[in-house]
């Protein structure tokens, strides 16, 4: 898999105190099933080392973890090279119950925006309250950025991790870049 590339090709930009960067190849698995099931929790634990995330939260650390996508869907984060094996593990663990685990690592763009003012850059593009007291670390939200669907969470280091579809990754990257270049609003 040495010839695998991300849609952003490792892009990184520093704008003022902000950093926008391609997060590189990241294993991602879409897991649908009964989020309250023990087998599912076991499978999630087995491949991510984390528990099943609460409503609208993400517990991703060091490229491993899970995010709450919908009442019957999680997005699991595993190392890129391990995604297929992780799908196999999940399928084995959950074979007795109805579920769907599918490798979507290549279907996504994955980037991170960090630094002072990142909240405001996000606020220019999503109909979401990013006030620091409201959108706090660990919160996960699916919405839109500009005109495309995106999911994002705030990590403990204050960076926004943004997941979008691969085909529009450069649109999202450029949108955040332009919004960062436009400067601070000084309102959040």
């Amino acid at each position: 898999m040495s010839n695998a590339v991300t849609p952003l090709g490792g892009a990184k930009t520093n704008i003022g105190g902000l950093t926008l960067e391609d997060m590189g190849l990241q294993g991602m698995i879409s897991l649908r099933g009964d989020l309250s099931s023990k087998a599912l929790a076991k499978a999630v634990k087995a491949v991510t080392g984390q528990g099943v995330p609460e409503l609208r939260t993400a517990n991703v650390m060091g490229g491993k973890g899970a995010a709450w996508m919908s009442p019957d869907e999680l997005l699991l984060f595993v190392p890129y090279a391990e995604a297929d094996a992780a799908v196999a593990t999940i399928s084995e663990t959950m074979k007795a119950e109805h579920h769907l685990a599918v490798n979507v690592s290549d279907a996504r763009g994955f980037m991170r925006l960090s630094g002072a003012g990142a909240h405001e850059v996000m606020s220019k593009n999503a109909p979401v309250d990013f006030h620091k007291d409201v959108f706090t670390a660990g919160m996960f939200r699916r919405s839109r950025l500009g005109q495309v669907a995106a999911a994002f969470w705030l990590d403990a280091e204050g960076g926004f991790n943004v997941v979008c579809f691969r085909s529009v990754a450069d649109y999202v990257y450029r949108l955040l870049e332009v919004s960062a270049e436009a400067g601070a609003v000084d309102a959040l």
Partner: protein
Amino acid sequence: MLTLQCPYCGVDAEETELQGGGEAHLKRFGPGSNDDDFEGYLFLRENQKGIHFERWRHAYGCGKWFLAARHTNTLEVFGTYPAQSTEPPQHIKDAISAKLPGWKWGNFS
């Protein structure tokens, strides 16, 4: 521009996150049904000025369809509830009755 609370993920979603899906609580009529029933299913809608039950999908959010009881004139939202409902929950009916005594919509009142 409306804001509706998605009953699945709890987000107060503004309309740009949502996709409208027309009238709720339609009963599907398939092969074997008579022409009147089928016409009703495909084409006939309540379309009242007043209470309306409608389908929305949290398209840019959790992707789930849900139903909303909304006043088409004042835009008051009496509640949202899961799409897996064959009729509006009683507390929503009560909320409507408080504002619109004697309301009637399809088979509901």
